[in-house]
């Protein structure tokens, strides 16, 4: 689109499954008649001959020869609509037209404003009560969010965040946590085809003030604050960024059950290590929430037992190519300390040193090829060195700074989980009280 603005006739080629997204994005960017041509999905893993067949075949969305579509896109004269483009306002109202509860519940579902579970309708009274959970004014801008890097940012106020917090069933005392999550600007409803979502980890005194669970069942649906804060984060992400609708603003091919709600508190009192928010530079007495992006895979284990190193190595190098977030029961943490991991850094360094693959396997991955190989080619380290490695040479998959460790759980079992999740940022909750 930027090339068109620079005076260069352009045509963008997409695969047909992305036709809806491509057209919606063009409209949102004020260039709805941008020229597009489509080939079948997939392109990945096809041979040159198969790609050639796409080029010599038909555009599956129009049924016309693909190359005719391309040439015409670059040479056919523009008409009046092409020359003027399209400008319009898309402001959203503050309030909806009054209606009965059943009709409003149906309206919210039909408009894709829910997670398809019942919501608490955001009446004026309920939203006003939620707003009492913060000292910030309702019209203050909290942040902006978008489902992916090629979509436009939407903006939101304290009141808009409160609306979604009500819908999730949250209580006003949870509202500073929810505002901090909204202020992160990191969406829990990414449109990535890899079905990513976010996880929130809460630290500091607010965990106890609002009764969060960091013990038995911390990561599950066993605590009102944990669940409704996580759900509020998910709902606000989809509604404040402009949607999360399959085929339009969501393309996660498999979906992700953790997108309903993924929030828990660190068990700081039972952890032998530094709390997560302190590790990230905040004072121990401050309340904060840390956001992790991805949740692309989950491994689990017990112990550390005699063969823990072999088990951990297999999990770390399982081929998912997303940095690990380790969540450990306090029993596991203590046993690691007994094995010499007296700080988080020691265990993280061990993980980084042992997450390894032959270069051939490391580079034979769609994620790595698309996102990391260009960096390697541009000389960015450590990717450039990994690209120089011979096919059978062992390369390190992650840097220590990419790996994170949190203690949670109630000591019922020496269990740990490993989530494929990239650390985004830590936000002060106290700043949103």
């Amino acid at each position: 689109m930027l090339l068109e603005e620079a005076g260069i006739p352009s045509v963008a080629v997409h695969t047909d499954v992305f036709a809806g997204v491509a057209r919606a994005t063009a409209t949102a960017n004020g260039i709805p008649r941008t020229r597009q041509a489509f080939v079948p999905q997939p392109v990945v893993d096809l041979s040159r001959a198969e790609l050639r067949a796409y080029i010599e075949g038909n555009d599956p969305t129009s049924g016309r020869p693909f190359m005719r579509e391309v040439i015409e896109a670059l040479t056919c004269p523009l008409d009046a609509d092409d020359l003027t483009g399209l400008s319009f306002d898309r402001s959203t109202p503050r309030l909806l037209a009054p209606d009965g509860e059943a009709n409003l519940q149906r309206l919210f579902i039909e408009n894709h404003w829910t997670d398809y579970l019942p919501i608490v309708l955001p009446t004026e009274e309920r939203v006003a009560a939620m707003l009492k959970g913060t000292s910030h004014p309702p019209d203050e801008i909290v942040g902006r969010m978008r489902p992916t890097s090629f979509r436009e940012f939407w903006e939101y106020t304290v009141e808009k965040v409160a609306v979604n917090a009500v819908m999730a069933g949250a209580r006003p005392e949870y509202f500073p946590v929810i505002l901090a999550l909204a202020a992160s600007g990191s969406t829990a409803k990414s449109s990535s085809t890899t079905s990513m979502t976010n996880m929130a980890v809460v630290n500091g005194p607010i965990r106890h003030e609002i009764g969060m669970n960091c013990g038995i069942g911390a990561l599950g649906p066993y605590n009102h604050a944990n669940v409704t804060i996580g759900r509020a984060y998910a709902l606000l992400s989809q509604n404040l960024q402009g949607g999360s609708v399959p085929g339009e603003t969501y393309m996660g091919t498999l979906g992700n059950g953790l997108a309903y709600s993924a929030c828990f508190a660190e068990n700081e009192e039972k952890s032998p290590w530094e709390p997560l928010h302190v590790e990230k530079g905040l004072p121990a007495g401050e309340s904060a929430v840390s956001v992790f992006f991805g949740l692309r895979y989950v491994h689990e284990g017990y112990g550390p037992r005699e063969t823990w190193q072999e088990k951990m190595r297999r999990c770390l190098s399982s081929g998912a190519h997303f940095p690990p977030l380790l969540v450990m029961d306090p029993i596991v943490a203590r046993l690691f300390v007994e094995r010499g991991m007296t700080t988080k850094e020691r265990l993280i360094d061990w993980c980084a040193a042992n997450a390894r693959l032959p270069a051939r396997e490391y580079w034979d991955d769609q994620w790595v090829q698309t996102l990391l190989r260009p960096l390697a080619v541009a000389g960015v380290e450590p990717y450039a060195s990994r690209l120089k490695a011979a096919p059978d040479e062992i390369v390190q998959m992650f840097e220590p700074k990419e790996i994170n460790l949190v203690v949670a759980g109630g000591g019922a079992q020496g269990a740990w989980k490993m989530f494929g999740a990239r650390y985004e940022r830590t936000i002060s909750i106290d700043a949103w009280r």
Partner: protein
Amino acid sequence: MAELLTVHDPRGYPPRVVGKRLAQRPESLDGKALYLVDCLFDNSENFMRELADWFGKNLPSIRTRLIQPRQSWVDDADMRAKVAREGDGAILGVGL
């Protein structure tokens, strides 16, 4: 009759959409320089190489040039400036 409720709209505030103009099209691409922009998705480079080959065989008067941005998912202003300075058209792909 059911009680009428007034509720808030849960959506954020979208930016105003400002229309942008498409570039004027030439009558023909004969003798023109056409950039084939590999968006760096997995296998898109091979797609673009096949596309260049197709032009070479079927429309040899069009001069195709393969080009890549520095990163996927990121606008490369330098690459864009080069295409704008030296090109007469562009095919971008294979992207989302």
